[in-house]
């Protein structure tokens, strides 16, 4: 994580396993095998993205070309960062993940991975399907936001 930018990070993605020394590709690592190179869906296990608030991990994955991650569970902040950046995180149990082949189809509006249904919150689904900018969406409620702060200022003047 050497730059302030949101771009130029994809080379660093999974670097520890993806490369041998000097950024030479590790031929054994799954993403360096021709059939999986440039994959757009990532399968994983428990607590993917655990403990990280660094959105740079998401930007790197997005730049590489990942559009979705299917895992048994996700780190909370990582999950939210994915939603903010248009990457879909799907939670499935280990049996369902193990049964997936090399080609997988995800239908977000119908909430299905191949034939397996998945859960996603309405809010996250809306953001991903409609590609919304969160700020513009929220500012649609500007009246309510101003009213809240005006009222709160009277109740808790020391906070202002």
């Amino acid at each position, binding site marked *: 994580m050497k730059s302030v930018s949101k771009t130029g990070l994809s080379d660093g993605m999974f670097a520890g396993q993806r490369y041998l020394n000097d950024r030479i590709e590790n031929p054994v690592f799954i993403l360096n095998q021709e059939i999986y190179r440039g994959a757009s869906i990532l399968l994983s296990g428990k607590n993917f993205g655990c403990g990280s608030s660094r959105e740079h991990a998401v930007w790197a994955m997005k730049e590489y070309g990942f559009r979705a991650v299917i895992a048994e569970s996700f780190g909370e902040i990582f999950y939210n960062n994915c939603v*903010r950046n248009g990457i879909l995180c799907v939670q499935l149990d280990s049996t369902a993940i193990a049964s997936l082949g090399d080609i997988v189809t995800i239908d977000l509006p119908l909430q299905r991975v191949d034939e397996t249904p998945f859960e996603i919150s309405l809010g996250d689904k809306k953001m991903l399907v409609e590609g919304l900018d969160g700020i513009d969406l929220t500012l649609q409620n500007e009246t309510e936001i101003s009213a809240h702060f005006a009222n709160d200022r009277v109740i808790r003047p020391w906070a202002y």
Partner: protein
Amino acid sequence: MSHTLFDKLWDNHRVISLDSGEDLIAIDRVFLHERTGSVTLESIVESGRKPRNPEYVFVTMDHIVSNKADRDRDDARTPSGNIFITATREAAKKTGINLIDVLDADQGIVHVISPELGIAQPGLTLVCPDSHTCSQGALGALVWGIGSTDAEHAIVTGTMRVKKPPQMRISVSGTLGAGVTAKDLALHIIAKYGAAGAKRCAVEYAGEGVEALSIEERLTLCNMAVEFAAFTAIIAPDGTTFEYLKGKRYAPDDALWGKAIDHWKTLQTDMGATFDYDYIIDAKEIKPTVTWGTSPAQAVAIDAVIPESADVKALAYMNVNAGIKLSELKIGGAFIGSCTNSRISDLRAAAEILKGRTVADGIMAICVPGSMAVRREAEAEGLDKIFKKAGFEWGASGCAFCFYAGGETFAPGTRVISSTNRNFEGRQGPSVRTHLASPAVVAASAITGKITAPNEVTS
């Protein structure tokens, strides 16, 4: 109707409920640091948008700053890290937010200076693009860690769109024994419930054992909640909290102090309020605790053995075996610092052990106070002399050796005892082996050269 503390803070701040199932929550304060905040601030500038209330937004320089005592304002501890510092400074000036710069007297680690300056207060909502934001729940604030894009949203709109988390209460009955610290309590809890044990809950810490803790100890306890997958942590404000805050720079002034206290006293969980998970821990069960593996949950009491069920990958990375005692392990490095344990009480605890003693041969030992204010206070008490005489480097504040980012660190393979919060593979450097512990354990271990309980050194 009975409400929890968390319910009350959530309800007080809910602007509206959204169709999506999320709530729009008013955010009172946003605190950034240069590592993840730089891109947030630049994004705001580039978008042409403005902070809703720049006076309620703060940024500090902590993650990448040099920790050398004679550092200049652009000096980073990693190659080319200065770009985070300069970008943050530029964008902070353009957006008009409160900048706490590298050489400012107030500079320090975000979760050390926010309480110190009285920015974190009972009943306020505060977000920060940093995993350990949960620390500040110790002040009875509703706080949580977010990403850089969410931070931009919070700064521009004054709100966050969030799904209300489930709630957990962990009550500590009795009080911690002599030589047992909040760090040991935190590690004990994570080991007991597992790395995902808090299940995205807002965790309220309560009970006699928690009420007996000082604010600094409460900060340590709340700091590690993220390590067992909590949404955040919170402790109800009480007399200890009010006394801590009185007179702090951003605390309510005299005119409003009484009104603030009256409100803060209502910020308690009601009798009969229910939690999704409600647990009790006996303080007497807790001993000085140290991690052996590559997750904060992989920890045992310092006099215990590594369990037979230990994960083999973790054992291999840490070069330890199941069945061995932690006290057999020789160390090569010791670090006292980080948002977990770098406050004045932490430094005093370590200094008490180091006084009149020196670290074992070949130990690379560093202490980095959590803020320059802590550092000045420590120096006024002569603690720096104790650390230096013992053989510790005495740094200028910042996150320092908590995490490796490409600069100076311990040699590969070094076994390090550390007062920090994460022991993942490579956290403190390539192949560096991290054992998490309290500052007193770090100090005792640095002296003997092996993982050691403090009372072994002082008795």
